[in-house]
């Protein structure tokens, strides 16, 4: 017997989106030089949410100058005082978390259940965690009285707009740096709301500057001679371009890039838990996750049982209105990303893998892609090698733990991996062999401000989170 779900939308009234937003430079909102603007859409409806200033090179220059101007005073503040600003920010985020969650779901397309229960709590927690470090840096293991780097240029992606902002800004400020942050072109709004939070917190002018724009704005920022540090989260391709830009300069660089994580299920794993983990691994946030478990490696002996259970579970996933509290999978973030997912999924079929998706009614407006899995995937297929960044799972099989390790590591990426087995010694053996920065055993896609996150190989370098995350913003 099938129960129908009544619509359960979260109210939009909690958030007030202005028709236009300027750049946030030196504590003030202002238009871009030249007056260029771009529109930000709700990907679930294609409705225009707001018009946002498109920063020019001149604006980037002004923002860097503002950050430089603020650096002396900010870095000279006692750590305990910097901490209190960050604690204030954490508290205001908690107070305004429902508003920010709705805003994030509108601008990004992610389900409110995730923005409300994952993104926003983690954002506040991240500021709370690094606030506490600001006056304890002497004890962080980087020598006595470690110094900040200066001005950090930070470029973040659209998949977790406010969370990636928190990962960048919280440790930077705690260590005494000032920042110029460029949010992603398709999701600028939560960063601009964050600028408002900085004002509510009384953060000194110029400590945080937000410049909105497209990739060209990001390129201006990372190439600007006035910054001391570049932090980027995004695609491996852009990460490499940034590494080339920074080569030969004194700028420090940390990169958190793409992934093609293996989620490895052994025959002794509890099937129902593993299925939940696999679903969470690839369909969380529409698969727009750099550490998504996009390759399922299942032991041959349980392949059939696992795939049957997985398909049954996938058929219950609810795709639709991001603001509906019952929605599991929201909208794809942009038309461009949707086209990329479609192209790669089509290549899977063309290369001979078998495609399956549950019957799934998709809304007529907006950008949507049904949860999809491919079986009969070989390691040579593009869908096994390239990051799809969408709700598409490629299933491969293995017989022995050695084979699982070899297949899991057979990628230039190395961000994360999952292991599902009841045998503790096998978990630890596998964890030691997998070349990836985060290993989730009998769980997946767990994040915490105290837990370092970052990749091996072409998934980037440097860590965000935990004591390790301080190193990216200290002159050590």
């Amino acid at each position, binding site marked *: 017997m099938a129960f129908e779900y009544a619509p359960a939308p979260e109210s939009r009234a909690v958030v007030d989106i202005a028709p236009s937003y300027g750049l946030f430079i030196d504590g003030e909102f202002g238009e871009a030089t030249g007056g260029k603007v771009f529109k930000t859409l709700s990907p679930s409806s294609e409705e225009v949410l707001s018009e946002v200033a498109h920063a020019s090179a001149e604006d980037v220059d002004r923002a860097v100058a503002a950050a430089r101007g603020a650096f002396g005073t900010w870095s000279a503040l006692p750590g305990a005082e910097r901490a209190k600003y960050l604690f204030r920010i954490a508290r205001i985020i908690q107070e305004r978390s429902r508003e920010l969650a709705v805003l994030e779901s509108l601008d990004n397309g992610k389900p409110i259940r995730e923005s409300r229960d994952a993104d926003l709590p983690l954002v506040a927690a991240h500021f709370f965690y690094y606030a506490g470090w600001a006056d304890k840096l002497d004890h962080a293991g980087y020598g006595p009285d470690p110094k900040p780097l200066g001005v950090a240029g930070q470029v973040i992606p659209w998949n977790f707009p406010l969370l990636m902002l928190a990962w960048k800004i919280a440790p930077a400020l705690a260590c005494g740096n000032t920042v110029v942050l460029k949010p992603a072109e398709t999701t600028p709004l939560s960063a601009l709301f964050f600028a408002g939070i900085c004002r509510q917190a009384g953060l000194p002018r110029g400590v945080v500057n937000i410049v909105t724009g497209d990739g060209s704005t990001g390129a201006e920022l990372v190439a600007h001679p006035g910054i001391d540090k570049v932090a980027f989260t995004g695609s491996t391709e852009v990460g490499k371009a940034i590494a080339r830009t920074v*080569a*030969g300069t004194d700028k420090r660089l940390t990169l958190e890039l793409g992934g093609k994580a293996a989620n490895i299920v052994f025959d002794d794993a509890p099937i129902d838990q593993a299925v939940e983990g696999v679903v969470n691994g690839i369909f969380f946030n529409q698969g727009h996750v750099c550490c998504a478990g996009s390759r399922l490696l299942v032991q041959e002996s349980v392949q059939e049982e696992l795939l049957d259970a997985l398909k049954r579970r996938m058929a219950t996933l609810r795709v639709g209105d991001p603001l509906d509290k019952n929605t599991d999978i929201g909208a794809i973030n942009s038309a461009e990303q949707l086209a990329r997912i479609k192209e790669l999924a089509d290549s899977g079929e063309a290369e001979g893998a078998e495609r399956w998706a549950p019957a799934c009614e998709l809304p007529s407006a907006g950008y949507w892609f049904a949860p999809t899995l491919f079986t009969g995937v070989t390691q040579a297929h593009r869908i096994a090698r390239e990051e799809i960044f969408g709700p598409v799972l490629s299933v491969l099989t293995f017989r022995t733990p050695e084979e699982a390790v070899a297949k899991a590591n057979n990628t230039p990426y190395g961000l994360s991996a999952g292991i599902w087995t009841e045998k503790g010694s096998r978990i630890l053996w596998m964890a030691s062999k997998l070349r990836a920065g985060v290993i989730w055993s009998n769980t997946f896609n767990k994040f915490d401000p105290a*837990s370092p996150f970052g990749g091996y*190989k072409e998934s980037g370098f440097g860590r965000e989170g935990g004591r390790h995350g301080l190193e990216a913003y200290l002159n050590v």
Partner: protein
Amino acid sequence: MSDHRLNVLKTYKLFVGGRFPRSESGRVYEVTAATSAPGAAGQGDWLANAPLSSRKDARDAVTAARKAFGGWSGATAYNRGQVLYRIAEMLEGRREQFAAEVAAAEGLSGARAAAQVDAAVDRWVWYAGWSDKVAQIAGSANPVAGPYFNLSTPEPTGVVAVLAPQESSFLGLVSVLAPVVVTGNTAVVATSEKAPLPALSLGEVLATSDLPGGVVNLLSGRTAEIAPTLAAHQDVNAIDLAGADGALAADLETAAADNLKRVLRPQPVDWSADPGTDRLLAFLETKTVWHPMGV
């Protein structure tokens, strides 16, 4: 018996995969003693013909280093520490040979050259002791907000290309090599270009110190010829640019971006000073493992 005996000269060879090959190119270059006059480098007496490594030699060395990585990184930290200590023991027994080579290579007095060798021996000992301690200073148990065990541990980053310092041909070399391999990385080293002989002799020490073949590979030759191949190599995970000058270093860093190698930029270093942990930590990855807690 004659009172004048003709001494036996050594053929200096590369050290790759635990063996001592000549350059596959068949090329050599003349190595001369440094003279004490500034700017007179290269005008000293002939010392040896050193192998002039080719790009193919560099690729072969990377293959050897990759092959050795699994075993070396999988060895216990205690074992790696013992091997490094063994290197110090072997070197101690050959102090005089190395002091003579360093004196000729760097134009130092006998006493100052001996001091360099002693410092190099001590450096191996110092790093040997780090093998089973680095995880305790670089790792962490992370108190996450949920019922999870969460542990971060450092792991070696893989195959590391090392451009050894140009001036400090032996102490400098040991100071950049030991921190790379003690944590489980394997290394391909471009030795000091004009003073490669102490480095090539180190290969003989490494070969008799229980160090598995391929963990350290030593290439003499032109840095500007070998280094671009290493910097661009897709199976090299990191590069230490200590021995590259500014313009070359920038080019190499650009090439290294192609597979996002970890890059340690050149910086002024006093090789006789306490090295600290910077080089030790520069070629580590942090791995964080989560597991749920429950009954």
